[in-house]
């Protein structure tokens, strides 16, 4: 009896990639994906269902499809992408609906994996150098995205306690760098001058794109309960990150940094408050718990930066190497449901 998986955020950078990774796994029978917009990656056997931001349709889908695993990749971690109301709606209300659906009586869900972020630890001058999973944040969250993620994690904790028959895995990912992803940090590293805060050269930790997808796959297959930090080995100073990307730094003033950052906004430079904190104090998380559970990283923090720098260089010369994909409803329905299509028993 194979696994039946529901992926939230199919259109998001991670949902589509996780779905692609799972499609190659013969143990997974059914993959259903939810999002407000169509997927941007070609998928072979994942069903796409359009939902609203708060996922109110989720409980009906869970009941109807009897999924046993939910991969929640829908959490917004990049506060520059959506408005603050959408952020709250999507993160908090969306997760509440998801947990309600998963915990409803008669629900078939037995495993919930949530992709969270090391943003929940915050970035302050009183931090320890390495955050282990048990350590709390030093000061209460100030920025909107951090507050919403902390709230989501607290709901998840309550859910795990109330539903001991469900395996709950919480993955906290460090800042991601890689070939395709676009985040405020990647955009900052592609400016002619990379912003920094004058007098501060913080130590930053990264995780590579591919390691993120592999980590989600790993905990899903292994059914590991608990909280895990997912980040590459080592930290490197921001100045070195810019140097690996072949860029120079432009300092922002140490006092009134947020004013200076706001002044740069019309130039297209987005520096949300949590990024400004990171550029001042950095952050480190201890990644050994996931390694001890058997996961092997393929990239260190410096390796992730190098991978990103290489991709930028390639893109600058030949553009994006991958053809862009457009979701066509009729075409996808044909591939999945038409009797004319012969399903390859090996699993295409």
């Amino acid at each position, binding site marked *: 009896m194979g696994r039946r998986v529901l992926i939230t955020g199919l259109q998001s950078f991670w949902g589509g990639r996780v779905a692609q990774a799972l499609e190659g796994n013969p143990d997974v029978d059914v993959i259903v994906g939810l999002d407000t917009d169509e997927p941007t990656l070609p998928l072979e056997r994942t069903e796409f269902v359009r939902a609203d931001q708060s996922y109110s349709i989720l409980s009906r889908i869970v009941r109807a499809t009897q999924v046993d695993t939910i991969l929640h990749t829908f959490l917004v971690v990049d506060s520059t992408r959506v408005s603050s109301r959408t952020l709250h709606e999507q993160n908090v209300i969306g997760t509440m609906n998801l947990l309600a659906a998963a915990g409803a009586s008669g629900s078939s869900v037995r495993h919930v994996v949530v992709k969270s972020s090391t943003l929940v630890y915050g970035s302050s*001058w009183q931090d320890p150098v390495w955050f282990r999973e048990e350590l709390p944040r030093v000061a209460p969250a100030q920025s909107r995205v951090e507050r919403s993620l902390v709230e989501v994690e607290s709901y998840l904790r309550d859910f795990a306690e109330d539903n001991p028959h469900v395996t709950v895995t919480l993955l906290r990912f460090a800042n991601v760098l890689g070939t395709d992803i676009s985040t405020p940090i990647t955009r900052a590293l592609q400016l002619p001058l990379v912003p920094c805060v004058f007098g501060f050269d913080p130590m930053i930790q990264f995780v590579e794109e591919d390691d993120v997808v592999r980590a989600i796959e790993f905990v899903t297959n292994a059914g590991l309960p608990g909280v895990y930090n997912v980040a590459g080995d080592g930290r490197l100073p921001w100045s070195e990150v810019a140097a690996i990307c072949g860029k120079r730094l432009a300092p922002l003033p140490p006092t009134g940094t947020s004013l200076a950052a706001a002044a740069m906004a019309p130039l297209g430079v987005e520096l949300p408050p949590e990024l400004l904190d990171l550029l001042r104090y950095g952050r480190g998380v201890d990644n050994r718990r996931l390694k001890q559970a058997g996961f092997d990283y393929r990239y260190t923090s410096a390796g992730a930066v190098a991978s990103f720098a290489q991709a930028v260089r390639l893109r600058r010369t030949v553009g994006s190497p991958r053809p862009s994909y457009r979701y066509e409803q009729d075409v996808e329905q044909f591939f999945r449901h038409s009797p004319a299509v012969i399903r390859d028993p090996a699993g295409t």
Partner: protein
Amino acid sequence: MLVPLPRPTPESPTLEDPRLSDVDEWGRSEHMRELARTLYDPVYRHWFRAEWEGLEKIPVEGGALLVANHAAALPSDAPVIMHGIETELQRRVYGLADHLFKAVPVVGTLWSRVGGVAAHPENAYRLLREQQQLVLVFPEGSKGPGKLYEERYKLRRFGRGGFVEIAMRAGVPVVPIAVVGAEESMPIVAKLPGLARTLGLPYAPITANMLLLGPLGGLIYLPAKFRLRVLDPIRFDVPPDQDRYSKSRIMDEAESIRVQLQETLYDMLRNRRSVWFG
């Protein structure tokens, strides 16, 4: 429920780590440290003329928590101790300092590059237990440097003995170091509590250096002779990695170390003929 077994380490390949600088996980850079040693050496040898006694008591390998008395408005003892141990014993020393350093631009980063680490128990544990490094800590905290000149060499309370708990949990010995000379290198003659409160500083001093040298006096030390005596390492017969240790035992040990350091300081002061020449 099956417990996932960790895979044996020989299987995991060493990953490529394309670093450009030698800044380690604590922010310390050996290159910067070498530069700092080259620049500081004249100060160490000819200005402060630091002389050590008992350096052989510092362990050659393995972790140890070095504790010393703390003085001078802008503490001069930490660089002297770190420089001395690094040049004489070729062992690196990480200095634990108040988190406040991290919040200061430029100075905070420089301090981190030469081996300064924020004084968080997690950091201390990792440095001592897992990485077996030498860690320098000043249990008096900012109370030590904040003393007025007339209270010099009278050790303040060693906090709540946190340093003893750190050493117990990490399973490393405590090595006390008595420092004579720092008090006179930048003595505080008066303090401005109102200004300190406004600026959020532990103290706002008026030093003899400022009175003698004007505004530059904030940065130039008086050439007091430094003598440093290392006392016997103190090993606690408790198992490491416990969740809690007996608070009364911790306070007793901390007080006994303070008394030991105090007695040593009095002994060294009795034999000191001159502040400037030893």
